[in-house]
């Protein structure tokens, strides 16, 4: 039982890390709000389903097309919405959140409701580790989460573009004086964030059903991980995912699953009281204000 809890706790942590990664890159690292993140996740899931089942494309092509669509959507959100209200964070949050609601409710309006919206797993079957069966799809999720986290860390800390992402969040005017085109970087950040949401959708959704309500949960989970880990910190995302993921799994296994949701909320409350900028963030301005 304990071994099983550890294994499934790892998978849960990997899922949370994957869900939070794109949101963290866009909002945390670049400071560009994308509260349509959950909608992009659901949009990508439904896109794959449509390419696969309605148009009849091969799975791999469907996945690639869905990721490209997510990137295009990110660019549209930036150039179509964010650019017009840039510099007004509250407006950015409200506009993107509104767009997200519209996208999700459109899916509901067009009858994307029911149990039939599922994606096939990448590799069928499961592996027995110490009398605990774990399916290959969950192992793939763990692997992709580790690779992407490491890749994101390298990208934001050791590449010019990654540093530019961070620069526009720290001080856009100073970044401009260094020759960083903030609009170009902001759009790229939004596009990559949406691509990460699409990747998360493509690997996580084969475990279950694509449901419109899932978009709201994704946004809440991403927010929880980012608040606890600290906006903008890749290491923080990793630690927060592990903390929340394992806490949720242990709560489900040794207490009751209906307490699981409380774990995230308690973690958010505690972090906001003790260290408002998150465990690994360095937003001194926020801390000093509190």
């Amino acid at each position: 039982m304990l071994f099983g809890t550890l294994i499934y706790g790892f998978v849960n942590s990997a899922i949370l890390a994957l869900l939070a990664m794109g949101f963290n890159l866009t909002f945390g690292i670049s400071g560009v709000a994308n509260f349509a993140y959950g909608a992009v996740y659901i949009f990508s899931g439904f896109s794959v389903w449509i390419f696969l089942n309605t148009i009849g494309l091969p799975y791999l092509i469907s996945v690639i097309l869905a990721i490209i669509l997510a990137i295009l959507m990110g660019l549209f959100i930036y150039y179509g919405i964010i650019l017009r209200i840039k510099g007004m964070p509250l407006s950015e949050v409200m506009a993107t959140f509104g767009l997200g609601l519209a996208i999700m409710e459109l899916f509901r309006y067009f009858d994307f409701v029911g149990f039939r919206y599922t994606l096939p797993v990448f590799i069928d079957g499961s592996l027995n580790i110490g009398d605990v069966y774990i399916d290959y799809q969950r192992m793939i999720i763990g692997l992709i989460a580790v690779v992407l986290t490491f890749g994101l860390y390298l990208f934001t800390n050791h590449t010019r573009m990654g540093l530019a992402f961070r620069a526009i969040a720290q001080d856009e005017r100073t970044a401009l004086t260094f020759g960083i085109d903030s609009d170009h970087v902001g759009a790229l950040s939004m596009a990559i964030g949406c691509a990460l949401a699409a990747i998360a959708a493509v690997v996580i959704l084969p475990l279950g059903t694509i449901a419109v309500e899932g978009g709201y949960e994704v946004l809440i989970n991403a927010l929880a991980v980012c608040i606890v880990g600290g906006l903008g910190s890749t290491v923080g995302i990793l630690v927060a995912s592990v903390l929340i993921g394992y806490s949720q799994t242990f709560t489900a296994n040794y207490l009751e699953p209906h307490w699981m949701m409380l774990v995230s909320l308690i973690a958010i409350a505690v972090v906001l009281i003790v260290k408002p900028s998150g465990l690994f963030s360095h937003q001194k301005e926020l801390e000093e204000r509190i």
Partner: protein
Amino acid sequence: MRRRTCFFVFALFFLAIWITPINNATAAEPIILGVPTSLGFLEGKEGLSCVKMAVDEINTSGGVKVGSVMRPFKVVAIDARGAEPGVPVSDVIRAHKKLILEDKANFIVFGSFRSECAIACMDVVGQYKVPMILGTAMSPGMQKKVMTDYDKYKYTFRACLNAIYLVKYLGGTMGYLNKEFGFNKVFIMNQDVAWARKTGDIMIKAVYDKMGWEVVGRQQYPTGSSDFSAGLMKAKAKGAQVILPIFDMPQSGILVKQWKSMHIPALMAGFISPLAGPGAWKTFDGKIAGAMNCIFEIGNMPVPKVPKSVEFYEKYLKKYGKPIEAGHSPAPAYEMIYVLKEAIERAGSVNGDKVVAALEKTDRVGAMGRIKFGKDHQVVYGNNPEVEALGCMIQWREPGKRVIVYPPSVAEGKIQLPEGLKSLK
């Protein structure tokens, strides 16, 4: 000359009106049916389609005879979203009030998706004396209210299965499993909503305790949960032979996938809404063989021994071009419109009190079997479709066939154990 022309034109106009065949039903004031449902859930969506199907049929055949006037039904639907997590009951109550006060609904049908909402809305319909027939909510709390304060709550009826009857079907199945295979250890996994909690509670008290089963554990999952590994690992660790799932959320399909991928050596027998319809086999890549699921009301699935259920199922397929996928609600949604029509015609009025009295006298043979309300305003369900309405248990078999295994009156085959699980006898 001009006067003659005008006269001629008017004469032609009135003649045209006079000779145009007017359907009395469409000319008369419509009877408004308020439908507050939850379209984000399959049961809500298909239920509304069935309400519309029945209304279309009735209107096409002339409408409802109220006294000497034929009046059509008119559907006014609201997506009150009562089934979704986080939607407060007050929103659903507001939807009911809007239907009654603004849209002037004469009746509420199929209303208040969740029991939490339905029970609260009984006060609303009682206040405005508007009869309401429920088609999804399952908590027996509704009947309790009718029985304890009849004058106030007599306006509420329920056409669908309730938690008590569900327990009877599940209990019968458990008895069969015990008798045939010697199973006596169960692990309960249920959604954390009123009807599912209540069903689990009643199963423990009325079935497992009495039958001498050991309930080795129970886990309750909030609506929207998407990982069931904790419960499945516990079930395996504690040696459960049967897992009783009670869920109606779309994500509950994940439970079946995990059950299969984690090789849990226990029979899945209960209710998981995504497993009810014929599309489940394809949706879950054929990995549901052996799982048993309750179809709450027949008609949602054709039962050859009950011809009306087959007729209804095929009518739906013809009209909408796809089969019914929900195991709960569509057939009662369809039948309740006919039940209401017959009650209005018996009462000769749309007055709430008169229609309530007429509804209590309902006796109709329909898609669900024989439909009669008990004193508590719940349609009586049983095992004989000639005497009562009927639900059934099915088992998924290769290559994607739903085989009715309970009750014996309509059974098509015996329960088969899935791979890896052996009989104790």
